[in-house]
């Protein structure tokens, strides 16, 4: 999550350009360190156990380490040890920017210090409260009546995007009160008590295809099925279904969180895929995740 926020900061302050950030995010993928990979490396877990933990993460909004403890694969002490090693992963984006010659060590050090002075979340430990503060500021939600709802939703969305699509993106900001042209759109409604929300994922051909293929492959779909369908060359029913399933996963986990935390029972409608639509953001906002493969926009509106 640090990368997404720190990247936003670097762009916002014009410290680096969007192209430089994109290149650094791509480079970063080559050096990213994951808890699962580290646990295998340390001999604490087998690859099958890591797969099982990743599967479980689709059902519960928890961190990999906590799930591994719940499932009896790791002890708390082992998780602590892996996390302390992973802290270095927080500087991977900076490392990539320096390696590519976009920043000097000194510039990176200064930017990091300035970021840490301004932001609440410093990336050193999971802290939802600090994250919430930063999200409110990034998305200008302070005076929004649905502030809490948006923050909960965007926080989970960012986590799910990192977990199931990849962490090579930054939170690029949001727009409100406009109508948004969408070449591809996949939507789903959430409703419960007096609340009704419209949620959607929008993107162009490349963004939809990339999102779908990454989600499907992460779900263990890479093998026969993909060959059988001859997939991910154009936006077809299968690509739309994959994007729809990611939206459904996000909304399903969000509904479980709301039920647990706020005692609010939400129901979901079937996902609808459409092309060439304009969405009126009358009472809601659109959050753009700027991935290395393109822009994915999430729309959340109160109906």
């Amino acid at each position, binding site marked *: 999550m640090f990368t997404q926020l720190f990247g936003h900061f670097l762009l916002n302050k014009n410290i680096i350009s969007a192209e430089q950030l994109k290149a650094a995010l791509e480079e970063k993928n080559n050096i990213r360190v994951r808890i699962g990979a580290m646990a295998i490396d340390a001999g604490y877990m087998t690859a099958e156990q890591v797969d099982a933990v990743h599967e479980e993460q689709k*059902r519960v909004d928890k961190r990999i380490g906590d799930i591994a403890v719940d499932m009896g694969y790791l002890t708390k002490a082992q998780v602590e040890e892996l996390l302390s090693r992973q802290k270095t992963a927080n500087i991977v984006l900076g490392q990539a920017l320096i390696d590519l010659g976009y920043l000097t060590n000194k510039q990176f050090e200064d930017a990091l210090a300035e970021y840490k002075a301004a932001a609440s979340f410093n990336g050193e430990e999971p802290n939802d409260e600090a994250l919430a503060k930063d999200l409110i500021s990034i998305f200008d939600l302070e005076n929004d009546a649905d502030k809490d709802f948006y923050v909960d939703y965007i926080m989970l969305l960012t986590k799910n995007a990192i977990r199931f699509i990849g962490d090579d993106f930054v939170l690029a900001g949001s727009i409100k009160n406009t109508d948004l042209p969408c070449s591809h759109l996949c939507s789903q409604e959430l409703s419960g008590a007096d609340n009704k929300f419209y949620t959607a994922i929008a993107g162009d051909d490349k963004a939809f295809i990339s999102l779908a293929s990454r989600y499907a492959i992460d779900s263990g779909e890479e093998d026969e099925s993909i060959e059988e369908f001859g997939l991910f060359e154009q936006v077809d029913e299968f690509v739309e279904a994959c994007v729809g399933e990611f939206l459904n996963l996000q909304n399903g986990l969000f509904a479980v969180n709301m039920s647990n935390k706020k005692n609010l029972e939400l129901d979901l409608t079937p996902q609808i895929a459409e092309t060439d639509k304009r969405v009126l953001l009358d009472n809601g906002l659109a959050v753009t995740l700027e991935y290395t493969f393109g822009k994915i926009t999430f729309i959340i509106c109160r109906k």
Partner: protein
Amino acid sequence: MNISELKVLICDDSILVRKKMTDVLKKAGITEIYEAKDGVQAVDTYKEKNPDIVFMDIVMPVKTGLDALIEIKGFDNDAKVVMASTIGTQSHLVSAIKAGAYDFLQKPVKEDDINKILAKLTN
């Protein structure tokens, strides 16, 4: 009855989910597999094929999985219908069981969970 002899109906509006479920069932040796994309197709296909077990998504267009379950139970009280939902909350589980569901699965569905249900059914 052997698992491989089971007649199975999969009801889900997502082609991705139907494909995944079909792969798991085929791997378990099942050959007679039917698919439905919504609640109406689910009821029609049930009447026509009389499957041994149904995997039914709750959130579907035209007619929801819960409505389809109630309708199927209405004319075949012995129908074995496993409900699947992304929302794994207690209230969803309770409403599925109250409506006569055979079991409940949280999505994304795991291969292990499907195999356990198939084993329970054939034992």
